[in-house]
């Protein structure tokens, strides 16, 4: 379910690092919590974003959710697919429905994030709290 080569945040974003580029998206857990996604607000290419700060928002029918950047960097690309098909986030959140690509300010920042096993343990705790 959660790709082993990605890293994850407690706010349910993922990042895939290749060299000094990070691809960022929201997790399957996040899209399930949001429900039908209808609009994505992304930063402009060239914007500098700090780790842990908002990079934009994803809106579902019922709510708007801020998206926080897992790491710091400069935006090199935003996903053009999401302009007209934001609902792709519901069907393919870990692959084609990525949000942005960043040139990483410091690739070592990634080490502070959860791996897939830790993230899965984290969301199963979250789910328990929800149903309690």
């Amino acid at each position, binding site marked *: 379910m959660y790709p082993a080569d990605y890293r994850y945040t407690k706010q349910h974003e993922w990042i895939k690092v290749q060299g000094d580029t990070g691809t960022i998206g929201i997790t399957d857990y996040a899209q399930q919590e949001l429900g039908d996604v209808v609009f994505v607000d992304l930063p402009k290419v060239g914007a500098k974003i700090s780790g842990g700060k908002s990079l934009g928002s994803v*809106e579902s029918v019922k709510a708007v959710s801020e998206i926080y950047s897992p790491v710091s960097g400069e935006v090199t690309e935003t996903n053009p697919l999401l302009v007209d098909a934001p609902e792709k986030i519901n069907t393919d959140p870990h692959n084609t429905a990525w949000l942005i690509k960043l040139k990483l300010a410091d690739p070592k920042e990634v080490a502070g994030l959860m791996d897939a096993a830790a993230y899965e343990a984290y969301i199963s705790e979250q789910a328990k709290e929800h149903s309690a």
Partner: protein
Amino acid sequence: MNTPAAVELRKTALNSVHRRLGAKMVNFGGWDMPLEYSGIIAEHQAVRTRAGLFDVSHMGELEIRGPGALALVQWVSCNNAAKLNVGQAHYSGLMTSRGTFVDDLLVHKFSDTHYLLCVNAGNQDDDFRHIVANNQFDAEIENSGPRYSQLAIQGPRATETLQKLTPSPLDSIRYYHFAFGKVSGVDCLIARTGYTGEDGFEIYFAPEYSEKLWADLMQAGESAGMIPCGLGARNTLRLEAGMCLYGHEIDDTTTPWEAGLAWICKMEKAPFLGSDVLAQQKQTGLPRKLVGFEMLDKRIGRDGYPVLIGGHEAGRVTSGCPAPFLKKNIGMAYVPPNSTAVGKEIEISIRGQAAPARIIALPFYKRPQ
């Protein structure tokens, strides 16, 4: 609001059914209710084009009985219940002495001495106390919510679906009328009412039959493509249909005039609670008025966002969301009474950015006749 940890949420008789269906559950007015099953958009479209089944057993029921029943209903609510025939229902407001809303409700006339009020889940206890406190008419008031489950069958194929399970001729029950009859052999109040903008029914019955009626209705609706629908779709459907929601468009600070509900506020039956204030407000003018708007770009003006007119904050969005059937982003908002013209361009402040919008006529959606 109580925290979930501190207070046990109330559950309808169908709670375990919703969980088995994998519904996403939410705390709504202190009740553990299904927000969505297959998704708000799919459920919304099902109701607009086919049929949807909603558990609305959280809704409250209050019954007023006795020779003073009509006088009490007339005193506490703003619509004219004296005009109701037996077997007829209407939408009304439960009024404060300030002419504002304690709640909005449906009033059903069972007989000259017996009325059933269907009220909002989160308000039912306050409503009961308010009516008791204003009962100078010696009427009997029962908080009968625990005696009823309620299901809403809504959509263009609702009638054919429900008809499969009842000998009552549904075509003879006109809009905002009701009858007593059997559904799947269970005694029901069958009302042609709803909160979706579609044709359909709301049925009231003893809670022990909830699972049976849910299962039988789901089966009867299968060929029509009926699906279970949650409170998420109920909200987008009612907003598309331009209907008010308590706590959003109306509350104990808003009057029927401000909310565009003059059609349920009958001054000719005065005096009633708040009627003096309402008469005065009609004379002196309104401080604000509810309007509908559509967003002019892809952004969504949501509940609580400021409305900007000429660059200045002039009101607030009361409800705003994507309209799945109309395929645009809509909302309702209070604006100054001189800024209500259809076509007027306004802005919605979305996290500090002004997004263009335009005032449009209510309701946004009207079902084809």
